[in-house]
């Protein structure tokens, strides 16, 4: 079982060394571009020309391509089926019995899939190449409440613990004769003796966790420091402003084009 509920891949690369906020800005830009770029193929082109080379630079191309593929495929297939088969009116391409695939539906599915590709592609790149704690520390340094950073980071680590605890409770209940296999009704009935100890136990743990955090100075007044050093540079600051400006330009251009059309 993995220690952390995170897809981060540790590599020695220039992408990994970038400041988390620079990669967050790139993800934000990619999202805006995905939603704003016109035409059918521009989003795919942008993905191929920008995102894939950046992933290759980060030495995570294979994992990145797999992650994008796995995320995109269910969307693309369902879009193609639902929009292609059930588009009202439109030009039929192929007919199979009472069903027909419509050209307009296919175009819509291709365009939407391209948008999803860019919107998720940027954030996957961020998640694969950035330690979650580095991102949270960077955001906390920019004024995000530290309790939010704490909640996000503990969740990443506690989810696998929670699963392990659920497995242990399930084993314990099974060894006392609880039936957990069979039809849906039986499985739903088996859920209660699993959930009650899991939830109650976790609520009791909260008290101890709160005390442990206080003892470690979580609410100690005064400025905080960080062991993790987040290297930043003037060029990265400039790049972030550039990406931000790019987002504004894309949004404005899209709105203007929308008004004309």
């Amino acid at each position, binding site marked *: 079982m993995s*220690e*952390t509920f995170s897809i981060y891949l540790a590599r020695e690369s220039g992408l990994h060394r970038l400041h988390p906020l620079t990669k967050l800005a790139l993800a934000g830009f990619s999202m805006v571009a995905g939603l704003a770029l016109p035409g059918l193929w521009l989003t795919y082109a942008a993905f191929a020309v920008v995102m894939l080379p950046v992933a290759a630079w980060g030495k995570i191309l294979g994992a990145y391509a797999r992650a994008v593929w796995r995320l995109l495929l269910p969307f693309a297939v369902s879009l193609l089926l639902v929009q292609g088969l059930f588009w009202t009116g439109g030009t039929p391409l192929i007919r199979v019995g009472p069903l027909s695939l419509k050209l307009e539906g296919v175009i819509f599915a291709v365009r939407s899939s391209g948008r999803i590709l860019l919107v998720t592609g940027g954030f996957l790149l961020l998640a694969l190449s950035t*330690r*979650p*704690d580095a991102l949270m520390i960077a955001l906390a340094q920019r004024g995000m409440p530290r309790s939010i*950073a*704490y909640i996000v*980071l*503990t969740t990443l*680590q*506690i989810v*696998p*613990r929670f699963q392990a605890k659920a497995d242990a409770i399930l084993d314990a209940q099974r060894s006392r004769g609880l039936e957990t296999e069979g039809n849906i009704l039986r499985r739903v009935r088996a859920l209660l003796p699993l959930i009650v100890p899991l939830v109650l136990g976790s609520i009791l*743990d909260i008290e*101890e*966790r*709160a*005390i*442990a*955090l*206080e*003892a*470690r*100075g*979580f*609410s*100690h*007044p*005064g*400025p*905080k*420091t*960080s*062991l*993790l*050093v987040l290297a930043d540079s003037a060029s990265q600051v400039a790049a972030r402003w550039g990406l931000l400006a790019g987002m504004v330009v894309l949004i404005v251009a899209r709105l203007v084009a929308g008004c004309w059309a």
Partner: protein
Amino acid sequence: MIHVHDLTYRYPGQSRPALLDVNLDVPAGQFCAVVGANAAGKSTLCYALTGFVPHFYRGKLQGTISVAGRDLLQTPPGELAGEIGLVFQNPFNQITGARFTVREEVAFGLENLGLPREEILSRIDEALALTGLADVADRSPYALSGGQQQRLAIASMVVMRPRVLVLDEPTSQLDPVGTREVFAALSALAAAGDTTVVLAEHKLEWLAAFAQRVVALSGGQIVADGPPREVLTSPEIKGCGVGQTRYTQAARVAQRDGLVPADKPLPITLQQAIDFFT
């Protein structure tokens, strides 16, 4: 360093006080053990010495508590971090979960206190060496054994250099190996001697090895207080469910059967037992 005067405390919704007329003075640098049966008030005393009673648990408190020159009744626990440390039973719940390696986990408290990075780094190495965790510094805290996790909890407190460190049964959820590891870390801490330590613990033979003083609690009251050998062999302690070390038990049998003169002081450590029987 610790001054507790006429302390009586009741948890909210409880009719019986958890602590009753407790008076305790612990000088700086002393290693003081607290023994007692379950529900004798050990944990409550630990929480009272760290400000969580009454600030976190509320309830009704009379008397005064002053630790490291601070009036605990006026100071919230958040401000005491770094001055008074607390380690408790469950190793798992003491890991913050917000850091991904042992080294960073130890650093968490110092980051909160706002110490400069160089200072944090040198202090971490010291704390990891004291607790024998230097080899696992770059592993995930969740990949450690129970004994290692509990030593991590101790390292995370020691690194903040508290003037007083309170430990509430730190080995109660550990196996014998984990227990030995934790006590090795505690004896290293005791040998360093600059921290005042209050340790609530069941395992008498371990305590006997290096506690300078033992306080016995029963029903929320202090029933015996003094040097370990005196307290752990005293008649008062027999009635309060603490038990005796196996050395004391064997010696009592030998004295009862007339094998050893009745006026010989009872042993609580292996070395004392050897002297007793030879």
